[in-house]
């Protein structure tokens, strides 16, 4: 289905795998215009964050990010994103497995459900979760303004990542190897652990990295759901926003630089995973 949307490893690998023609005059001009636009829109603004963060020197940066309330927000964000990623590794792999290997009525509906968090506006996602897990919950489960709400919101917005990176790899896996292992007496568990899991690991890792990055940077779905209580349910993005609203852009940039460093680390990890896969395959 929408595998290409969320499977960065494959497209990026292929992007750099094959060469092509040299640039001529028109394509060179096109590249120049594209790079100018990309720089004005993305590269220069992101550089501005890092530059502004470093203007106060190391001391200023350190003070900003170790402020009690900010440090609590960073701990909550990173900790929750890690926990959610662990759940996603298990549930995402299981969902991908069911979607690829099982056949039943309504499977296409599940395929659509998986992609919904990707297209749904984040503020709507917050409202959606609030209607089942908020004060008026028909289940009687009210988690709003608690840390569980943060966990739930992260779980919702990161749902597609591991499913969509693992699914195509699982679909291309050779069933004969598994059958051979089974005919040689391997149990289902052994076959899974020794045959299937190793081939899925790069895809799971890539999806996990994306899911973690998405969780850490989440904002919109938390606005209505988590209450943004300082020291309790306030995440890093909310801290940055309140600094912006107080016109303290230096402080905002310092905390934003931490998030950018995490995003950057994730991209580097993805790149390393991709290179490994190319070398093997």
């Amino acid at each position, binding site marked *: 289905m929408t595998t290409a949307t969320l499977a960065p490893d494959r497209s990026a690998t292929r992007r750099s795998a094959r060469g092509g023609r040299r640039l001529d005059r028109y394509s060179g001009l096109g590249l120049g215009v*594209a790079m100018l636009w990309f720089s004005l829109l*993305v590269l220069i603004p992101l550089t501005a964050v890092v530059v502004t963060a470093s203007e106060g020197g190391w001391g200023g940066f350190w003070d900003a990010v170790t402020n009690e309330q900010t440090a609590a927000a960073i701990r909550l964000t990173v900790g929750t994103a890690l926990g959610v990623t662990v759940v996603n590794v298990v549930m995402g792999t299981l969902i991908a497995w069911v979607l690829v290997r099982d056949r039943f009525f309504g499977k296409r509906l599940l395929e659509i459900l998986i992609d919904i968090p990707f*297209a749904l*506006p984040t503020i709507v996602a917050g409202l959606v979760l609030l209607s089942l897990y908020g004060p008026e919950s028909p289940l009687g489960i009210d988690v709003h303004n608690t840390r569980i709400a943060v966990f739930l919101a992260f779980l919702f917005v990161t749902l597609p990542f591991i499913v969509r990176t693992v699914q195509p790899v699982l679909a291309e896996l050779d069933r004969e190897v598994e059958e051979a292992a089974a005919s040689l007496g391997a149990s289902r568990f052994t076959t899974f652990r020794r045959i299937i899991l190793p081939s899925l690991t790069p895809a799971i890792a890539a999806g996990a990295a994306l899911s973690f990055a998405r969780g850490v940077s989440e904002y919109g779905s938390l606005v209505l759901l988590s209450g943004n209580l300082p020291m309790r349910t306030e995440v890093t993005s909310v801290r940055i926003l309140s600094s*912006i609203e107080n016109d303290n852009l230096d402080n905002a940039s310092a905390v934003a630089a931490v998030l950018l460093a995490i995003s950057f680390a994730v991209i580097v990890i993805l790149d390393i995973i991709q290179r490994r896969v190319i070398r093997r395959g």
Partner: protein
Amino acid sequence: MAERRPGRYVARLIVVVYLFLLVAWPLFLVGQNTFDGGLENLRSIVEDPDVVHALRLSLMVAVIAVVINTVFGVGISLLLVRYEFPGKRLLSALLDVPLSVSPIVVGLSLVLVYGGRNGWFGPTLEDAGIQVIFATPGIVMATVFVALPLVIREVVPVLEEVGDEQEQAARSLGANGFQTFWRITLPAIKWGVTYGVVLSLARSLGEFGAVKVVSGNVLGETRTATLVVEEKYLNFDKGGAYATAFLLALVAVAAIVVVSVLRPKEEDR
């Protein structure tokens, strides 16, 4: 070919229950809450001129952002796949950056550069009569930023799969660059472009955090549809919040369904 083992049913059950509780049921409740008092909630928002203005602004911004990202995305995809140049690998990695940057950081970064008072370029632009932050151009830029990789991610794999033999043949028969693109390349990648456009449209209509930072959220001027949802909910107009959210969710679900129905299934090939 499905094996009849109990483990299979357990796995199926876990997945169905998980997705039901996490996505399907909550989503259904938003619809239910919207139609709580019949069509009253929907009527209240379509009769509110500020909400109508916000919906119009969101739609206009989304269309502009999609056009920009489609032209840029198709162009850069062609360059990445068909040409060889130094720094290609780095560029390819950088193009995915917007996917993992927090929307609040996106907004902050644009304010730092284009802010009217202290931005790097903002004061110069303002002297020239162009206001970016707290105005529509800023909202467009924030939206383009967050949806930037979507078209590229759809088009690049398709371009690679179709190869360039036909393009070479067209060129050797005397077609110029534009003719080759219009008659050969574009028809070959049209579905990839379509998926990219649909996904970008959904993403652009729904951007919230980045727009919140750069728009200033002025009622009837720079308030977009997603900002209305927050505003209505926090002002205890839950009916209005649910109705606006319902409209936005409808577009998002429609986009996913369209892509899912159009995209050829792996097993059907």
